[in-house]
């Protein structure tokens, strides 16, 4: 495997214990590679696998043992460009993952006018029956069983022949996204790639069930993945200009209050697509069927993106911005919209890419965080993104989140400060910030081992990896993750999921975990099989089972309990596997 452009010798530079004194190396533009003096003992190897992957698998553990911990970390930080063909084979059946937004919308999106008619008909029917259907779009459909879904679908196609051309429901798109995420986490060789893609998606969270966002997530995630180890500012700009984020946080329709949508469709203003539409669709996918509403549409500034940009994406809520800054930033981003989606835009254009609509932009200088952003159209937004990406509060906020992800729920401040210093020194180089963290004593030392509780996603996937289970159908797994409180791509608020134990430890989710563990071990999770011969053979002992599933080991008391269980007449190994996976020890990482 092509490790990277650094030689092994070059790797052997930094001593973990000396990180604090080293500080920024003078003139060192290049990386300060992860130390080679990292102990390569098993405990360290297991710890590193626990944090940099979705759980140790036999194969990965063997590899770390062979190449050593630091070389393995470097491999993960600078993975080979060679395709992960085994993973690609597993993903191949999920056909919608290969499609871009335009293709997905063409094949799976219910045309807005049809959707409105369906919703109206449904609301009328419910009203007539005295029922409420307050369920979010899609939720109602999911509450039906397979037969009801099929009947509903057939009835709809009969009523709306336009639907016959669609290749499936939008639900399929989200389902395949979830399935793909589970498969990648379980089987990708470049595990850290998956961890970081997940980290950044969660940092820049979007909700799949808002309007057409579900069709935009594939492209969105590809954009994030490509930049997951690069410069933070590049990532920030990519997100700011992504249709998914523009739609999710409403910026696509944030415009100068004096703007009239007709101005927009002079040919020169938006990529030369002069197709005025006199009946713009309602601003969101939600039903809005009150015929008594005034026909005129209100246009103006929407603060949603501007606020979350500073609070969640960059500075942090205590990063030093005010409500006045929110308004100014919102003005600067007016006109950042989605081609084909913008206010009054031609609805049939499903290209869904970023566009700047000059006529919708609020003119004039903007005053942000004590700086003046000169009147400059699209450039204003880019200047603000630069200002935010290079702001010290952002260095701290991003570093803190990364340290929380990889080290401890309550991040050790000294490490956050060093990571933030690296962030600032390298112009927001994510890979370098990770190196600072991974080579730190806080990360490598014993202090925080097993200190983190797995999230539901990590727990389910790590069970698959530990058991070496064969996943033929990932849907039941993603459903379980949802049942544990972490539905993938379906976290509605922009905060994403919290990365701290108190979020995931509750009576309810623990019970879900225990039951999942038993189900998985007993082969009761549909579409997932465990090699029973390996785990349930007569010569397998508790020790051999535990060594495979939990290389970090069971506590003496747990061992005692499970030994007593194993000694019981008739207890089979599958049950022991379930008990180990549901044990307190396996919930930690």
């Amino acid at each position: 495997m092509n490790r990277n452009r650094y030689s092994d010798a070059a790797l052997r530079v930094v001593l973990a214990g000396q990180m604090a004194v080293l500080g920024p190396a003078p003139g060192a533009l290049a990386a300060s590679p992860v130390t080679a003096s990292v102990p390569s003992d098993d405990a360290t190897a297991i710890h590193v696998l626990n944090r940099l992957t979705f759980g140790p698998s036999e194969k990965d553990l063997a590899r770390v043992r062979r190449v050593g911990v630091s070389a393995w970390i470097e491999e993960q930080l600078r993975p080979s460009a060679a395709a992960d063909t085994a993973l690609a084979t597993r993903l191949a059946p999920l056909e919608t993952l290969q499609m871009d937004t335009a293709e997905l919308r063409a094949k799976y999106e219910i045309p807005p006018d049809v959707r409105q008619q369906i919703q109206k008909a449904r609301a009328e029917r419910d009203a007539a029956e005295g029922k409420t259907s307050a369920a979010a779009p899609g939720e109602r459909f999911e509450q039906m069983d397979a037969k009801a879904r099929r009947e509903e679908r057939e009835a709809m196609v009969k009523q709306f022949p336009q639907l016959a051309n669609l290749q499936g429901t939008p639900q399929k798109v989200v389902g395949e996204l979830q399935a793909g995420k589970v498969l990648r986490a379980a089987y990708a060789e470049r595990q850290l790639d998956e961890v970081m893609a997940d980290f950044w998606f969660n940092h820049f969270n979007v909700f799949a069930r808002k309007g057409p966002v579900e069709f935009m997530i594939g492209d969105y995630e590809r954009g994030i993945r490509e930049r997951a180890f690069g410069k933070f500012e590049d990532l920030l700009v990519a997100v700011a200009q992504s249709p998914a984020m523009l739609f999710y946080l409403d910026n696509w329709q944030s415009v100068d209050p004096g703007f009239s949508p007709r101005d927009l469709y002079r040919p020169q203003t938006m990529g030369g697509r002069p197709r005025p539409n006199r009946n713009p669709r309602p601003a969101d996918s939600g039903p809005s069927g009150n015929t008594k509403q005034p026909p005129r549409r209100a246009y103006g500034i929407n603060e949603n993106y501007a606020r979350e940009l500073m609070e969640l994406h960059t500075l942090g809520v205590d990063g030093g911005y005010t409500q006045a800054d929110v308004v100014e930033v919102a003005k600067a981003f007016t006109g950042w919209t989605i081609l084909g989606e913008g206010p009054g835009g031609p609805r049939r254009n499903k290209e869904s890419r970023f566009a700047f609509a000059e006529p919708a932009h609020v003119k004039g200088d903007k005053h942000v965080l004590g700086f003046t952003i000169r009147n400059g159209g699209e450039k204003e937004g880019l200047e603000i993104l630069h200002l935010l990406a290079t702001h010290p509060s952002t260095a701290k906020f991003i570093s803190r989140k990364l340290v929380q992800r990889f080290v401890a729920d309550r991040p050790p401040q000294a490490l956050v400060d060093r990571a933030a210093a690296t962030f600032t020194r390298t112009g927001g180089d994510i890979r370098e910030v990770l190196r600072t963290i991974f080579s730190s004593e806080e990360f490598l030392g014993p202090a925080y081992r097993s200190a983190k509780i797995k999230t539901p996603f990590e727990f389910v996937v790590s069970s698959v990896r530990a058991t070496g289970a064969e996943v033929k159908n990932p849907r039941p797994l993603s459903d379980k993750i949802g049942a544990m409180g972490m539905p993938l791509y379906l976290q509605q608020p922009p905060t994403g999921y919290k990365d701290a134990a108190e979020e995931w430890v509750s009576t309810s989710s623990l019970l879900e975990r225990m039951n999942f563990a038993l189900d998985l071990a007993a082969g009761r999770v549909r579409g997932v099989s465990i090699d029973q011969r390996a785990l349930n053979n007569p010569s397998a002992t508790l020790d051999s089972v535990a060594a495979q599933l939990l290389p970090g080991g069971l506590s003496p008391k747990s061992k005692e309990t499970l030994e007593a269980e194993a000694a019981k007449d008739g207890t089979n190994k599958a049950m022991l596997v379930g008990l180990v996976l549901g044990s307190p020890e396996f919930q930690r990482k």
Partner: protein
Amino acid sequence: MTLNSSRRIFLKSSALAGVVFGAAPRSLMRSVFAAEARGGRPKTFVVVFQRGACDGLNTVVPYGDGGYRKARPSIAIPAPKDGDAAAAIDLDGHFGLHPALSDLAPLYRSGALGIVHAVGSPDNSRSHFDCQDFMESGTPGVKSTSDGWMNRFSAALPRTESKFRSVALTQTLPRVLRGASPAVALARIDDFHVREDIAMSEAAGMPRAGRRGAMEGGSRPGMAGTKDADDSSAAAFEKLYADAAKDMLGNAGRETFEAIEALKAADPARYTPRAGVSYPRGRLGDSLKQMAQLIKADLGVELAFVDIGGWDHHTAEGASTGQLANLLRQLGGSLSAFHDDLDDRMRDVVVLTMTEFGRTVRENGNRGTDHGHGSVSFVMGGPVKGGRVHGRFPRLSEENLYEGRDLPVNTDFRDLVGEVLVRHMVVSDLRKVFPGYEVKPQAFVGALRS
């Protein structure tokens, strides 16, 4: 030795011996809980959290204020008008209920439901994350608070044997209930048990939920049908967590098994909704329906929490119909079903709705509203002084608005919660519940009788 502690020991030892939990004498447990209800039933406080910041002005509409319509050209709710289903439902000549809340109108008129307007948290960050966090920690502006106010209140109550004193019908334990006192989170009461071992149950022929087919290669000759092994995995898990460290994970594990035992004993699933009561479909209706079951099963519920998200309507909020209307219909239908379902038990139950902040008085450029400040709460049951809109409500002219744009917070949510805790839960010392804040009866809006 008290009856209660002997019950625990009985349950523990029987569990470890592998006796089916459900076989424990139900009559014994029922009497234990009955004995516990000191001089009658315990008082219950149910918090309904509307996550996402509900638009209080379109929920309880100040239609009598000309500024309201002016600020909301496309989303204002029309003033009450006979025969107009899209109009607000008049409450007092100034305020009206959103038409989708029609289920609440009879409760308001009968005095079972009160309203507190211009209520909220003093924090001005307008951040969902921070403001929910502060409203749940009970310490606006102080981020280091690690526990929630409901949890601290639970600690202030006399000891109980009930495992369900604090309960949330949520998958993850909400911030407001996190802390040193035990609290149960459960998503579905009929699913709250360790899956029994399948191979065993197939043979034993015991009708239980969760059974789906035999495991591969897992037959166990000689063991089929014996009760001994039936709950073996449950018992082993219970032991694993009983031995675990006394940290968050270990505690939650132990609370899980205690809650399982209590649920099996009380069997709340028996308490189906009263005839004629139907809860709306959706998460809130489901949650309140199950909460009613827990309360009716005398499990000792005192602090209860449910939530419903989706209130963040920056775009296309809708007016009489639309996104907000759909959610309000669910809210109103669920509250009124809960009220009718609990019937005379509502004397001992107070329900309070909360949301992290309100929304801008003016609609924004997308027929929605942005993050604001004050919002509205409903108070139902117990000693509520219903049939009126409490709290100081300003005229909606710019100079009266918070930062020139939002409904102000004239009632701090801690004073409203404090009023419920003092007048319904009958605990007067709230210094530990809201550290750094003095809850003063003079500040109570009078939503409850003292």
